[in-house]
């Protein structure tokens, strides 16, 4: 865990003091809302449908027990006893009151956290593979680079008023768990043929109104060139990016309007100017940062408890089968705690559950906790011998749902239950789908299937890259849901294809059920996943299942 230096601490405290005064001046009428709005957004405070919402950054999704406990405390004291994990590794508090926000920000600063640059046209929270530093398939822990990028981008004077928001994601593995191809800049740590570490750099990915997969602009960027290169990308975008039209302002549009060749040339040109200016200070800093992400002292102990429980306890086995991932130390496992209990709100965790996770991270998990963009919580380093005890504690706390990667492990944005931008609800749709397939007792038979739901075209719920994507729209004053199939956010990233006309609110669950039943009927055995089956079969059988009524089938 990276701990704030005196510099970080002073900066965050100064911002809290500044914002506290701004809130005071807003409340006493010295500031109008027009004056105050940009100031509150700079500090992550939105006004949503029913209340304010405070978005707090969790840099590269990494927390420790102390931070988690503080989030639990904030939820209990100033909110309604919970917090919401978002698809950008942030936490959102849905019910803070404006006069309380300075105290909340102070409490965050006490544990080295803040809400700076979680809004506005700036570089947002740098996200990373939630299995970073633990995954068996990883080349290098990407978080030291993510932290370097965080420090560089925080309050960067040149990049506080970009044409539009800017999102960077990084992974250290070939298997992309960080959706790097749908980010403004996606970075993948790679080794070249000489064994040197560097990055594959993608630019111009993004979802929203114009979903695009990022283009590779560098196959191998040497490690030492990371900051000058990223700064060159931002710098070129800052000049070329359109400020006249919000819908054309993201770098993905700049890239397409300018052309990959020309923009690459401009980036490289700027890079040559910038590179000498860094003078090695960034590399010295990176070396310091690296120590903060050193692997924990792994325990060498028997794993027989795991084997025994796995054989004898079916509940433990079901959970182990879905919620564990391979760790680079084969005595260890990566544990995903599902925040997707069927019928509950995806990504919502109570303060009591956060406390439990903090305790368990300390007791069993080398004080390391991650938040995934899939809105789950991860304990990345658990010795297999401790898994039965950990599982028992999770069962007690009501967070032992065994469904990671299955149909009920749904990403859903807050939608029109909270969000002022939403055009339809997404949470109840997710709840009902999850409950329906639990009732049918089909989810394990269906196997890996990612459903992602957004309540508006901005796509916070990543619907374009869902194996089944659902987009809620307002069609003539009625909620209507468009379905896409075959999307992927992984290394085989793909934007899903629309099935056809949308569905009314009460028709979405039956529609998803028809899609899934068509898959079960057509698949080449249980070994063929939904996504593989869709790629083999194409849209037709699913379209037929969705739109052909009984009569039409009889006629045909």
């Amino acid at each position: 865990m990276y701990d704030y230096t005196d510099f970080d601490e002073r900066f965050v405290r100064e911002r809290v003091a500044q914002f506290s005064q701004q809130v005071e001046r807003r409340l006493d009428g010295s500031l109008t809302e027009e004056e105050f709005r940009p100031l509150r957004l700079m500090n992550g405070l939105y006004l949503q449908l029913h209340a304010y919402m405070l978005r707090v950054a969790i840099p590269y999704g990494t927390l420790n027990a102390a931070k988690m406990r503080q989030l639990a405390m904030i939820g209990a004291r100033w909110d309604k006893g919970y917090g919401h994990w978002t698809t950008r590794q942030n936490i959102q508090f849905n019910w803070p009151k404006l006069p309380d926000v300075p105290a909340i920000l102070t409490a965050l600063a006490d544990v080295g956290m803040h809400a700076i640059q979680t809004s506005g046209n700036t570089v947002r929270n740098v996200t990373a593979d939630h299995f970073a530093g633990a995954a068996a398939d990883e080349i290098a822990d990407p978080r030291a680079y993510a932290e370097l990028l965080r420090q560089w981008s925080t309050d960067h004077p040149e990049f506080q008023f970009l044409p539009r928001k800017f999102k960077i994601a990084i992974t250290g593995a070939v298997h992309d768990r960080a959706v790097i191809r749908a980010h403004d800049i996606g970075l993948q740590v790679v080794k070249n043929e000489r064994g040197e570490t560097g990055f594959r750099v993608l630019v111009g990915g993004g979802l929203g109104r114009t979903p695009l997969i990022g283009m590779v602009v560098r196959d191998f960027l040497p490690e030492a060139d990371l900051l000058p290169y990223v700064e060159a990308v931002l710098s070129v975008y800052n000049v070329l990016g359109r400020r006249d039209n919000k819908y054309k302002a993201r770098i993905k549009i700049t890239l397409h309007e300018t052309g990959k060749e020309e923009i690459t040339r401009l980036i490289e040109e700027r890079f040559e100017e910038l590179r000498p200016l860094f003078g090695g200070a960034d590399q010295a800093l990176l070396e310091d940062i690296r120590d903060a992400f050193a692997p924990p002292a792994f325990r060498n102990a028997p794993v027989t408890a795991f084997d025994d429980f796995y054989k004898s306890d079916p509940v433990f086995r079901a959970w182990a089968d879905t919620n564990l991932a391979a760790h680079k130390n084969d005595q260890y496992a990566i544990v995903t705690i599902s925040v997707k209990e069927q019928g509950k709100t995806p990504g919502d965790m109570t303060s009591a559950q956060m406390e439990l996770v903090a305790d368990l991270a300390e007791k069993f998990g080398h004080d390391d906790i991650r938040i995934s963009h899939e809105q789950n919580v991860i304990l990345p380093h658990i010795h297999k011998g401790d898994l039965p005890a950990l599982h028992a504690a999770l069962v007690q706390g009501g967070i032992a749902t065994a469904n990671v990667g299955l149909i009920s492990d749904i990403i859903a944005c807050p939608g029109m239950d909270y969000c002022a931008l939403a055009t339809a609800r997404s949470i109840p749709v997710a709840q009902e789908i999850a409950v329906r397939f639990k009732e049918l007792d089909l989810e394990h038979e269906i196997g890996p299937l990612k459903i992602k739901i957004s309540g508006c075209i901005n796509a916070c719920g990543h619907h374009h890259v869902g194996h089944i994507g659902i987009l809620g729209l307002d069609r003539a004053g009625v909620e209507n849901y468009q379905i896409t199939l075959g999307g992927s956010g992984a290394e085989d990233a793909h934007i899903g294809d629309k099935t056809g006309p949308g569905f009314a609110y009460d028709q979405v669950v039956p529609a998803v059920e028809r899609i899934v039943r068509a898959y079960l009927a057509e698949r080449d055995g249980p070994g063929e996943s939904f996504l593989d089956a869709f790629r083999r079969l194409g849209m037709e059988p699913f379209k037929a299942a969705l739109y052909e009524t009984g009569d039409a089938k009889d006629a045909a």
Partner: protein
Amino acid sequence: MSRRFTPKVVTANRLREGDVVYLTADDRWTLVHGEAELIEDEAHAQLRLLHANAQGRLIVGAYLADAKPGPNGPEPTHFREEFRTRGPSNYHHGKQADLDHV
């Protein structure tokens, strides 16, 4: 030819708590949609919105929302405004909970 004016209410969020509120005919801000002033005249609507916007120490983001008359006062016509009258659908939070105690 101008389009016919559809009735409106003035709505906003409270500055301190963020709660959704509506402007009443006697210049109060109420949590209850049915207590709002139903405005049937476009010029009057603009005046009421101006009046609302002058109260920046109490409320934020005032706007005119479509409404229709009902047995218990004005009712929203769009689902977004209907959700705003009560709160989220996943928890009994927000106004639907607060109004239980009224």
